[in-house]
């Protein structure tokens, strides 16, 4: 669209700005809350712009004094990173070969749809069996146990996502590599996986976010600092007799940071289009 009228391009930009505002406004408000004095947040009418800037809550939450709110928060931050990280890595390790196999062998595609079908069950339906299962294995209130539970959520999801990624890579390229003398693992390592890198990165990011944001199972299967994750820790902040809205907001900002950092780091890998040019077109 080289020839756009001025009015139309103004309209397009206005729409884009509106969309950005709608998406970013809650985040901005979250940040403003986290630096507003407590009085401002409970004042009536609400003070939208803080009179003074107060970063002290960040200090409170990140302090390492024993038995403080900060220690609990930091422990839950570490737990969240551990659980989400382990679950994501394990999910990718399972999903890459599974997705490739299903993509290249359409006759076993039904197995993937069976697994996807378990997604239809609400988490509540599985909570009790999972609880007994974890209890039997001694994995309640344990980061490994929670990661294992998350794996059951992430693995089908990432497999499904990556299958469509592998589907987009022509089989002829692998056939050509095979005839060129590359074994299965050489073909995957040198050709297929590099081509699938964008979709693998996307899968990893979404898997990590899914695990990072999970609340229900974390609430059920963890009980103290040893395994409690961020989402549960934030809920704890809200659950006391006196709620400091600013503190909750601060926890929210801190909880949002790791995924944002990961997203920025993987931005390059997320940009797809690597396959263009291998085949016609």
């Amino acid at each position: 669209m080289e020839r756009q009228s001025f009015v139309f391009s103004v309209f397009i930009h206005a729409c884009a700005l509106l969309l950005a505002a709608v998406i970013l406004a809650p985040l901005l408000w979250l940040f403003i809350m986290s630096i507003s004095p407590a009085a401002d947040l409970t004042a009536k009418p609400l003070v939208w712009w803080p009179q003074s800037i107060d970063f002290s809550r960040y200090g409170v939450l990140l302090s390492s004094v024993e038995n403080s709110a900060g220690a609990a928060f930091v422990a839950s931050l570490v737990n969240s990173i551990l659980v989400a990280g382990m679950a994501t890595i394990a999910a990718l390790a399972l999903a890459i070969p599974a997705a490739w196999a299903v993509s290249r062998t359409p006759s076993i595609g039904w197995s993937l749809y069976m697994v996807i079908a378990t997604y239809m069950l609400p988490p509540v339906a599985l909570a009790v069996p999972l609880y007994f299962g974890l209890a039997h294995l001694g994995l309640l209130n344990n980061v490994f146990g929670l990661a294992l539970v998350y794996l059951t959520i992430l693995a089908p999801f990432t497999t499904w996502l990556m299958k469509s990624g592998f589907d987009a890579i022509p089989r002829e390229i692998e056939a050509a590599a095979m005839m060129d003398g590359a074994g299965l693992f050489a073909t995957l390592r040198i050709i297929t996986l590099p081509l699938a890198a964008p979709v693998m990165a996307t899968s990893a990011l979404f898997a990590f976010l899914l695990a990072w944001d999970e609340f229900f199972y974390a609430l059920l299967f963890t009980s103290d600092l040893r395994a409690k994750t961020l989402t549960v820790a934030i809920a704890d902040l809200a659950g006391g007799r006196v709620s400091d809205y600013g503190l909750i907001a601060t926890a929210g900002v801190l909880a949002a940071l790791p995924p944002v950092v990961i997203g920025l780091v993987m931005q390059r890998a997320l940009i797809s289009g690597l396959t263009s040019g291998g085949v016609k077109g």
Partner: protein
Amino acid sequence: MSALEIQNIRKTYGAVETLKGIDISLESGEFLVLLGSSGCGKSTLLNIIAGLAEASGGDIRIGGRSILGVHPKDRDIAMVFQSYALYPNLSVHRNIGFGLEMRKVPAAERERAVQETAKLLQIENLLDRKPGQLSGGQRQRVAIGRALVRKPQVFLFDEPLSNLDAKLRMETRTELKRLHQMLGTTIVYVTHDQIEAMTLATRIAVMRNGRIEQLGTPEEVYDHPATLYVAGFVGSPPMNVLDGVVTGEGVQLDGGAVIALPVRLKNVVAAGRRVKLGVRPEALRLVGETADHRVLDVEIEVVELTGPELVVTGRVSGQRVTACLPPRTKLTVGMKQAFTFDEDALHLFDAETELALG
């Protein structure tokens, strides 16, 4: 000893038989074209030779050695795919050298081979690029280079020109012919384009419904089509086919005219037999001064000038006829015009079996 021997190859998918016993024996240096419309089984046969599909029966030998069950990489073949199937994440240099790299050829030797191949195909200046940065024709060359560099016994081409535009297709066709003449390699080439088949092949196998209709040199296939299908498939525009009955004087076309039969066909067919008479459009010419035994009175319906020739379409006794004439011929739509042809240009097919007679 044959370079490539295909013996009674069969392929079934469930109850569907896509290859019904294919036999071809190829000498070293031959250029075999598998020609047929889509679904005739030509690509399946190529994939079986390549090892990308398993045969349900029969045997394939390369250099006397049976290769069924042998891994594709150990068959001493190389293939150029229709989609090129280049490795998009590797440079052109590495694309070409990949086969040697996987076969643990020392780097120095590999480098020499890649440079040599690139020079042959005139793509030396592209070696550092990625396939995505190349045009269609350049990708095609890289794909050919990747096959050439390994110097295999047999090259397989799967419709390699079908993604190129018309001009580039002709250039690449000539290029392929030049390469084949220069290197003397054994090639099996799949296409549905009869002009590619005619120009490139030393032998053509016309395939239909999983069978070979005719196997022969381009001249044989063009001059002596073994079946009505081959007659209609090879040649553009396709051969004229006129229904008729054999009588004492020749062939009585449905709706009137009688065409005299040449001596070679006179005693071959009994009177009363239903036949199809075939004449190539380019064999037809305007009737001259001298009286003729073979005259088609054509009512002209369409006249198309293609440049080098004038394509005339009309009807003779209700049956459709096409003729290719010199471009300056003066003809107008609606006029009646008598055409004639040499007796050698007359083909006769049984109306039922569709096999060539005589």
